[in-house]
């Protein structure tokens, strides 16, 4: 039973890392640019499908393909920002939300149009299993753990020790003050999308690897979990999104452990996430780790 728990903790950390990578970007654009991005899940799918194109259709190695996928998603995010979201500046949250819904439609259905509705997979041996102590992991899970460590390390460094990161945190806290202090808010918006797009693409690739198969709507189905992780961590807090994602992944997996009165029926894992979301919004909208702030 302990082995089962360890395995669940591991699985939870893997899915949690994916939520975290996705949520960090979603939280950044929400906090820094005031954009709740409904297309975020579709950015993830875009990352997975561009990688799929390079990896399976063009036969490139997975690592090279993944880098291409991350870069493509990142560029797409910047492009969408310039064409669609920048003209929306100064408009309300709901209007921007609705524009991103339109964006989500365009991306998802273009992917369906190009790649069809069948399930796709990367060129990787899904049957292989690595055994480390009591834990069994798939190659996809192993890659995800490595990618998550690198991505989270890079983002952490960027936020804490660079002018770009400081500027982002400053804008997230008080965008007017940041502007009069000299933060180039226009340039920062582009950089924020560049990072967010890259992270979303990476999250999509990892999710595709861990799930094994995916179609064009698999990112959209994850969106509400990503948002839950964002809210858990406090909107706009990148560190919070990291913690929120990991916590959500862990809770969802570990809740099925037999040790909890036989464990929660796995079918209800998502309900658990939903309850967590509503509770957080009601009780601590500033996030699990946030300081209460009067706005």
């Amino acid at each position: 039973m302990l082995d089962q728990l360890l395995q669940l903790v591991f699985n939870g950390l893997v899915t949690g890392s994916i939520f975290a990578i996705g949520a960090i970007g979603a939280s950044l654009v929400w906090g820094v640019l005031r954009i709740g991005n409904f297309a975020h899940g579709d950015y993830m799918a875009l990352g997975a499908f561009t990688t799929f194109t390079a990896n399976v259709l063009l036969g490139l190695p997975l690592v090279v393909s993944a880098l291409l996928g991350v870069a493509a998603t990142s560029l797409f995010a910047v492009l969408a920002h310039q064409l669609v979201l920048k003209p929306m500046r100064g408009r309300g949250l709901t209007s921007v939300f609705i524009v991103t819904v339109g964006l989500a439609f365009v991306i998802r259905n273009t992917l369906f149009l190009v790649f069809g509705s069948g399930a796709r997979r990367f060129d990787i041996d899904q049957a292989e299993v690595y055994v480390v102590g009591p834990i069994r992991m798939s190659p996809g899970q192993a890659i995800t753990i490595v990618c998550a460590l690198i991505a989270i390390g890079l983002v952490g460094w960027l936020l804490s020790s660079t002018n770009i990161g400081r500027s982002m945190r400053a804008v997230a806290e008080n965008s007017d003050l940041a502007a009069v202090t000299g933060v180039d808010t226009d340039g920062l918006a582009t950089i924020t999308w560049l990072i967010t797009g890259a992270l979303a693409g990476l999250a999509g690739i990892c999710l595709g690897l861990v799930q094994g198969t995916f179609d064009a709507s698999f990112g959209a189905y994850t969106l509400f979990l990503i948002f839950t992780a964002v809210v858990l961590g406090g909107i706009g807090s990148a560190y919070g999104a990291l913690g929120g994602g990991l916590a959500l992944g862990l809770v969802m997996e570990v809740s099925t452990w037999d040790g909890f009165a036989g464990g929660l029926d796995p079918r209800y894992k998502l309900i658990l996430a939903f309850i967590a979301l509503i509770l957080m919004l009601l009780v601590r909208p500033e996030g699990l780790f946030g300081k209460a702030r009067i706005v």
Partner: protein
Amino acid sequence: MLEFWLFVLATAGIYTIFSLGLLVQFGIAGLPNFGNGAFMAISAYAMAISVVNGLPMWAAAPVGIGAAVLFGLLLAIPTVRLRSDYLAVATIAAGEIVRYLALNLQELTGGAAGTVNLLGPGIAADYNSSWLRFQSGVRGLISNLVGQRVPSDVAFIAILWPVALLLLAAVWYMVRSPWGRTLRAIREDETAVAALGKDVFAYKLQAFSVGAALAGVAGLFFAWQVSSFSPDDFRPTLTFYAFVIVILGGKTNVWAVPVGAVLFAGIFAGTRFLDFWPLSVFASGDRAYLRLVLVGLGLIVLVIWRPQGIFGNRREDALET
């Protein structure tokens, strides 16, 4: 061709009722509910489950609407006080949860296979026969009236649209009533209305429930139109279509809703005419995705360049929040 227009009108009627609900919630009260499709689903399922368990259709219909309103209140009580972006996230999550539950509670809903499995696999469940009897009665009446046998869709439309227009008139009246004016004032400046001693929370709950009830009615007609439905008929995109319709007409224009709905249903159903080059390179099944790409593009263009909608001109119709 007639068949095409009948389909468009039937779809548009259901969308009219559904979108009226969103107009009350979002356009008038300023509550962006991205999970309104869930109320449609709950009503449809509650009605179908009641019928297969022996309730007569006319008794099951109010059960469906009641279930939608009950769930609406359940969702609204904790969430309508939230900031608009939080509310949007909470409602989209609620919608997904309902769909997810319907997929997984197979004993109750028949699961992914749809309502045909309501009584368990192997028994073809049927919630629709009394409706079809009623509809064919109406069809007979109309056929006698016009002197020739009309398609059954005509009967469906002849029942649906009077209901839709009645509800439209009711919403039109509500929006102009002191109740509607108070809701609009809440949307503009909540604290000012609260300062006048009005119970803002109660008003928001009422607006949310009205929207849920209208979604419930739409859900009933949707269920009656088809003979089996499944949770995937209620994807989040359903609610997004209603947003398109409401925004298309200008978000507070009640009369523009049916126009927007017909236009939308026309464009939606009309994509089968998109078979010219270069679109003809796509397989006809894939061309369905093309219309969704177009819907997405249309939504983006509309919100960026014409936030007051196609028919709206007043500032109030503009999407600013």
